[in-house]
């Protein structure tokens, strides 16, 4: 085809254009290694909020992480830290796009909670088959931890 070189060059340009527009948003395979800083993946995010409970030293503090829109739904996690340890993780908000995602989230969130508690951080492996849910969960936990000033 005579116009083949033009098509190839245009394709490369289109590719580069989209990549350029995307960088700065949620990390993808093109922006380096896995997620290390929590970045919300869509504009529909609300900031983390702190609910300080009780007196300071040794007392528990709780924060609700950012609402993470993960494509198939939105979830936000509430993290409780006592004496520098994560003691409780619960779901502050969960709204899913459809039934399948709802069922999946409900099955998977308890497992994610256990992972966070045993890892004592947001750097968890995630559950296979629920990759987006796991990532959103991790991001939300990390943002809550940031607010609490832990790790």
């Amino acid at each position, binding site marked *: 085809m005579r*116009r083949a070189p033009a098509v190839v060059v*245009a394709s490369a340009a*289109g590719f580069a254009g989209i990549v350029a527009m995307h960088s700065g948003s949620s990390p993808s395979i093109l922006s380096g290694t896995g997620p290390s800083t929590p970045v919300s993946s869509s504009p529909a995010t609300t900031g983390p909020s702190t609910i300080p409970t009780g007196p300071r030293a040794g007392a528990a503090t709780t924060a609700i992480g950012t609402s993470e829109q993960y494509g198939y739904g939105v979830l936000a996690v509430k993290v409780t830290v006592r004496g520098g340890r994560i003691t409780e993780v619960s779901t502050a908000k969960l709204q899913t796009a459809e039934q399948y995602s709802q069922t999946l989230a409900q099955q998977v969130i308890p497992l994610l909670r256990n992972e966070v508690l045993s890892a004592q951080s947001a750097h968890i492996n995630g559950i296979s*088959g629920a*990759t987006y849910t796991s*990532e959103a969960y991790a991001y939300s936990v990390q943002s809550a931890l940031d607010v609490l000033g832990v790790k």
Partner: protein
Amino acid sequence: MASLTFDPAYAPHGGRHRRQSVISRPGAVPRPVVAEVATILAGLGFGACVALAVTAESWKQLAAPGGVTMFLGNLSGLAGTYLALIMVLLVSRVPMVERVLGQDKLLASHRRLAPWPISLIVAHAVLLTFAYAEAARTGVWYQIGAFIRSYPNMLTATVALVVMVAIAVTSVYSIRRRLRRETWWAVHLFMYLALALAFTHEIALGPSFVGHPLTRLVWSVLWASTAGLVLVYRFGLPLFRTLRHRLEVVEIHPEGPGTVSVICRGKHLDRLAVAGGQFFEWRFLTKGMWWQAHPFSLSALPRPPFLRLTVKGIGDYSSAVARLRPGTRVAIEGPYGAFTTHARRRSKVVLIAGGIGVTAIRSLLEDLPRDCDPVVILRASSAEELALASEVAELVRHRKGRVHELVGSRSEVRTDRLSELVPDLQNRDVYVSGPEEFVNRVVATVLRLGVPKDSVHFEVYSL
């Protein structure tokens, strides 16, 4: 002898024989840059689609079970559907593009591109089924059921896939050969429906679209615009022209053994912009023929209120044309074709016609200016098969050119003969028209003799 309504002694660019009859408007001048821009945009879009799939991935997703398969499934879905969009655009008959590239070349590109979108879309379905099954640790068959039951829009998407595969199967040459043209065509039209059915699942489930309203908007606008173009140019404009010009057959005029000219009368033909060498898809609204549209070139520029096409009787349809009754209404699509004077790079030309290919050459000649010094080569297997030869001779004489009739089994248009007849071949634009095999051979010969590719123009007559 020419029909009473057509007189070949017409000089479009002045001269002693100028007639007073009003000629229809010349076609709009094709702008080659349109084709270049369209190609670049198509490439840009493709690269963007691939990038959409890549930027929607993260290393974590790839590392998860079924992750790589899922990525490939997403990528093939995006790329395949984008190419399907290009397929639709290629046959949308948008005038600005069609008059530069020509309907025959656009159809050829459409056919050549076809395996890619269909393979990618089938791969998309297969890969994602395996990927989801692997991630959820279920069986593949269970996963297919899960898709259809619990994901939105997957039922319509599956129906769309089945329709697409059916269309692809019927288009495989060995199967298409066995089908009647109308059957194949009716099945093929369902592709519009399949693409419409598949659209909702793309927006609802594609990782690049969910949660990305801008991407969704662009994709939707792209598809809506394509649908609009198809409605307007593929269906609307032909219908409009048919209703406006109200063509009907007035005379069937024999031109030689098995060859007839069909003279049609219509309204407002002075407003029908046609260039010499162009063709229409003709639909004769009579029993047995109304469901088929066949391409035939005009064999002369319109003489309002008359149009003429010349048909050789190969096959049932063409033979039925010879039996058309005056008063039969005609629906048209067109004019199409880039086989016109606008395609010329040089002022001098060589026109080579094989058999019924002479019709396009005959109407093209009317549009060529006097300084084109035409060398016309008419090839036929017997002398009586040289339809319209006298008209061609008259037009060529007026332009001070030469006609060579190569008749008989020994007079092929071969390299040595061609360079003998046209010593300055490399300095001329070459127009070749006729049956596929003839055109391929002559074009190859002409290129071998050193004519630059941009100066070779051809039109293939296929059944």
